[in-house]
Structures are given as structure tokens and as C-alpha cells.
């Protein structure tokens, strides 16, 4: 019974994804919305902006670094916090109590 449900889940999941992928723009096509200089509502498209302006904005040839460290620096702070959290969690769950020192 469980197996059938699991199988159905997987099939359903795959089906949804396949359905969703049907209308995706062709992979690698330069015409994709995310590669356009301007979005359909006329706002800046981030991806294009980065390629064009990254060097000018931060004197850094590696655009990924600029995006990571500057444009989307809040993401990176969060990312660092995730790593930090993982470390603290490891400490929290696995460290034993030290027997000798414990504030009463």
C-alpha cells in the first residue's frame, strides 16, 4: 500500500514537472526573458545588468563574485548564517555536557 502511494507520488511529481517544463524557454537561447536587457514590463533585468555593469560597479572581473558579494550580499549573509547554524547545531546536538564545570 505504502509502495503504491510512494510510486504514485513520484509519478505525479514527475508529471507536474514535465508539464511545467513544456513551456519553458529553450535552454541556452539568448532570447530568454532573463537574458534580455529589459523585462516585459520595462524594468531592468538583473541577469543582463550584472553582465553589463558588474565590472564598472566593483572593478571585479568575476561577475559571480560581484553578484555574490555585492548585488545579492544579503543572500550571502544568510548563506553564511546557514553554515554557521549548521555548526552550532552540530555542537548543540552532539556535544556532551562537560561534567566538571556547570554553573549551579
Amino acid at each position: 500500500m505504502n509502495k503504491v502511494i510512494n510510486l504514485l507520488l513520484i509519478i505525479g511529481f514527475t508529471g507536474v514537472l514535465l508539464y511545467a517544463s513544456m513551456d519553458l524557454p529553450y535552454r541556452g537561447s539568448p532570447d530568454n526573458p532573463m537574458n534580455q536587457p529589459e523585462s516585459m514590463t520595462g524594468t531592468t533585468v538583473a541577469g543582463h545588468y550584472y553582465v553589463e555593469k558588474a565590472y564598472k560597479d566593483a572593478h571585479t572581473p568575476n561577475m559571480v563574485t560581484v553578484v555574490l558579494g555585492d548585488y545579492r550580499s544579503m543572500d550571502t549573509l544568510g548563506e553564511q548564517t546557514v553554515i554557521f547554524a549548521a555548526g552550532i547545531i552540530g555542537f548543540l546536538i552532539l556535544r556532551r555536557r562537560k561534567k566538571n564545570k556547570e554553573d549551579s
Partner: protein
Amino acid sequence: MIVSDLPVLIPLTFLVSALVVTLFGFWKERWGYPLAVLGTLLAVCLSLYGFFQVMDGSMMRYEVGGWAPPVGIEFVYDTLSAFIVLVINSVALIALIHSRVVGKTEFPGKRGGYYAVAMLLMFGFNGMVITGDLFNLYVFLEISSLSSYALIAIGDKKAPFAAFRYLLIGTVGGSLYLLGIGFLYVVTGTLNIIDMSAMLPQVIDNSAVIGGLILMVLGIGIKAALFPLHGWLPDSYTHASSTSSALIAPIGTKVAAYVVLRIMLYLFGDQLVDIGLPVTSIVGALAALGILYGSIMAMAQSELKKMLAYSSVSQIGYVIMGISLSNPFGFIGAVLHILNHALMKGTLFLVAGNLREREGHTNILKFDESYRKKYPWTMAAFTTAALSMVGIPPMAGFFSKWYLALGTIQNSNWLLLAVILISSLLNAVYFFRVLEKVYMRSSASESTSDTERQEVVPSMLWTTTIAAAALIIVGLFNASIVAVIQHMIPAGL
């Protein structure tokens, strides 16, 4: 300077608290508690101040790093997010103050790390609420998720396994959400919520958009314990330590529900109708099923915390149902219920914590009259919260149900109206079952120690009673809250 920076300062307060707690907590673990409480208190003050800045419906858009929105990440601090931030921080403050003694007994030697992780949890939640960028939301989601796995793993013997299951399904949820972002990103080329919502009308018939919506709602639905994705919740809340459940249960699912609200009513908004898939009806039906399922399962439990956990499944259904109604009344009901349920569940789990601390168990079958004599105030708080859950006016719980009912009536959705009413009755059944035991069943042992007052220490008692009193106050003065909520109603509704 400070006012305009509030959107980013509120979450960062928790980050700093986490760092400070880590540094000092490693050195002396008893410092964890005061530092965490202090940090949360500061955050509550900031969010209160911020709430008054934007409660007239204005909005602060904060460009992190000085980059205008589609390029950089923006924080959106509008009335809604300010409200939710205030609610979750206040409830967290209450839960953290309450945890002083519980921490000593339930996870001795680990308090330093525990409070650091609790602060990180709040950092994640605050970030999720305030951020205006879909991917940034994912990052904060993962911070809060990782922290909540850890907090749940600190508990009784089964807790690590419950936490692991939660981790598995929760990470799948987070990943689904990320995949959903991916689909939307390919089609629109932006990650900013406001930017994207302006573009969606043009691409709404694209199957990738529909797939993205499904994946996002599914992923966040797991976090929000939307039926039938709630499987992780009961075990997690039951086996976690009292503090963890008092901290996560009122807040965690609410924040996720808030994200669902953002996605459905702000990102998609009135496009939900054009999408070619009855998303609102499906989500509403799931919410209704969840309400009934949670209530029925709650009736079958003999463990108080498990009962409360199933009741959470049912209560989150109210919020989601309010969202799925997508009309002003439903919106008001949903947002108000986020507040109300945070307070109610907070109170109930605090009561469970009090009982665990004193009695060592929360098995309903063992409850009897002596509990009322021993813990009159705790039990009064429990009664208040229970009546509120059932929806007796003037407790807070009645009013969110009232608005939800008005919402269903406005949509002429009689089935959902019936579900709301029936589930109130079911709530009554499982709460009065407990109340009957506490107030009526004569105690088995007649020793005098069973009739003397043994109320918990003040830090626990006061937090519990304040939370319970807040229920009545919120209920009586909910009109002023609703007046603020009316500023939040998105334009499309």
C-alpha cells in the same frame, strides 16, 4: 537613520544576539538565557516602533546594499510584514522568558547552543517575513528550518528521529520551493516579488508559471503543515522539549502560512483566477480537509502535546482557508487568526510546559482535580485559551472565525462555512474533555500534597497568564487590530 533602516535592523538584532550568545554561551552557558531574552526584547521594541511607523498602510522598501530592487535585494516592510514580525517576536519573547527553568531541567549543559540556535531561528523567521525577494526568502527559510530541526531534536528520546523526519520532508519542501522559483525565474527573469507580480499577467498562461506556483505552494505548504503535507508536525511538536514546542508551534507554521499568503495574494493576486487551474478552490478544500482531519485526530490523542499538535494542523487550515477565500473578509480572518492562533497555541504549549516541569508528563488520562488545586492560574490560562480555541466570544478566537465565516458567506461557499462551524464543535469536544478532567474528576490520591498550591515559578507563571490575558484583550479590542489589517488588504482583493 534608524527609522529608515528598521527593516534590516529587526532581523539583524537576532543575528547579533545569536553571535553574542554563541560567544558568551560557550564560555558560561547560563549567560545564554539573559542574552537571548535581551536580544529578543530589543527586537520586540524595534518591531513595535516599526509597526507604529507603517501601521497607516505605508510601506518601507529597503534596498540592501544600495541596489535598486530588480538588481539588488529589497526588504519590504509594509503593514502586513510589520504586523507579523511584531506578533512572532512578541510570542517568541514570551516563550523565551518562560524557558528559564525548563532549560535547566530539559537540556542542561546545552543552553548556550540552544539559545544561539533559537536566535538563529528567529533571524530566519524575521527575514522570511520582511524580505521582498523570492530567493532571499529561500535562504531565510533554510536558516529557520535548520534551526527548527535542531530545536526539535532537543527533547525526549524520540526527538532526534522526529527531527530527522522533519528534516527530510522539510528539506524536500524547501527544495520544491526553490525549484518553483527556478521555473518562475526562467519565464520572468526576475526574483523580486513586486517586480514579478507586475510581469505575471503577461505570462500567466505559461505552464511553467503554473508549475512554479504549484511547486512553491507545495513546498511552503509542507512547512505550513497544510493537509496532507502535515505528516512531520505531530511527532515533532510532541517529542520536542517544552520550550522548543512553545517557540516553534505558535510561530513556525504561521510564518509559512504568511509566505503562502504573500505568494497567493500578493505575487499572483488576481491572476489566480486566470491561471486555468482552480488553485484557490483546491487550496481551500485542502484547508477544509485539514481542519476536519486535525480536529478529529486531536480528539483521539491522550497526550496533551500531541493533541495540541494536531489542533495546530487544524488551525493552520483556518489561515490557509482565509487566504484561499481571496476576499477582504477572508484576508482579515487569516491575518487575525495568525495573531490569535500564535497567542492561543503559545499559551497552550506554555501550559504544557508548566505541567511537564511540575508533573513530568502531560498525559491527559492522568489529569484530575488535583491539577486545578495545585496550579489554579495555569489551569485558568488553559481554560481561557481552550475557550478561545472553541471560539467563545469575547475571546480572540471567536473573531477570526467570525471574519472567516463572513468571508465564506461572501463567496457563498456554504461548505466551508459548515466546516468552520463543525470544527468549532470538534474543538469544543477535545478541549472540554480535558477541562472536564481538570475541574471535575476527583483525584485518585487524597494526600494533602495534592491539594496544596504548587504553582510554577514566577517567570513561567507570569508569561503563561500574560499570554492568556492577551487573548481576552485582543478579543475585546480586535476592532482596532482589524482597522490596521484593513490597510494590508492587497489592492486586487
